[in-house]
């Protein structure tokens, strides 16, 4: 828990979408199975070393992916699954920590829809962006303004 006064959170959301040449069931399986998800949900190999991966894909279950980057930065993703509809939808909330500091808490909604012979996958992320870099004397100053600007740009 923080003892100094936090600066306010900022909020933003964005959506990205991709048409995938596979059935909705195969796209869903890439989210729902550990062997599927670890094939694509990761950092570039060589730039990142895994610290921990946990995967418990069920409503209320948790996923964690923590790793150390070449430059020493440690990123830590911890998610809780809130809604799972096979072959259609996955909703999870996640914390993102960088070097032990929480920088965002987000809700991610994954929607999977057949489109012709392919599958449209849409990820919408709604986040509260925090002031994790804002400690006095830290290398990153002005994070509140950054996050305000980020929120503004996310709303474009």
């Amino acid at each position, binding site marked *: 828990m923080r003892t100094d006064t936090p600066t306010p959170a900022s909020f933003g959301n964005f959506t990205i979408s991709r048409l995938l040449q596979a059935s909705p069931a195969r796209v869903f399986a890439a989210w729902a199975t550990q062997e599927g998800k670890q094939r694509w949900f990761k950092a570039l190999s060589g730039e990142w070393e895994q610290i921990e991966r946990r995967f418990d894909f069920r409503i209320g279950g948790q996923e964690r992916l923590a790793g150390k980057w070449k430059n020493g930065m440690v990123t830590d993703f911890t998610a809780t699954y809130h809604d799972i509809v096979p072959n259609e939808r996955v909703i999870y909330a996640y914390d993102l920590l960088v070097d032990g500091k929480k920088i965002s808490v987000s809700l991610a909604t994954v929607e999977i829809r057949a489109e012709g012979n392919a599958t449209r996958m849409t990820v919408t992320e709604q986040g509260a962006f925090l002031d994790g870099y804002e400690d006095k004397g830290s290398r990153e100053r002005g994070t509140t303004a950054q996050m305000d600007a980020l929120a503004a*740009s996310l709303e474009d």
Partner: protein
Amino acid sequence: MLATLAQGERNIGELAAPHAMSFNAASKHVRVLEQAGLVRRRIEGRSHVLRLEPQAMAAAERWLDQQRSAWEQNFDRLADYLAETDPDAPGNESP
């Protein structure tokens, strides 16, 4: 003044000092910078703390780019993975 702010947050007095400006003159200057969207003001008790905006904008854009590009890279890998494991594709084993 912007160069000073590039080094970190300053209050109006601290911004005025190196330029031998009066507090009022510095305050007026800050207001112009603020209206131009170059600096952002935060009020802490009786002190107005200023910070530089353009740097922040660039950093926010970088952060957003990183977030989006991480997703795009994940999607690229997902598309590759789906192609590699396509049961109907020639050369791939049926499960």
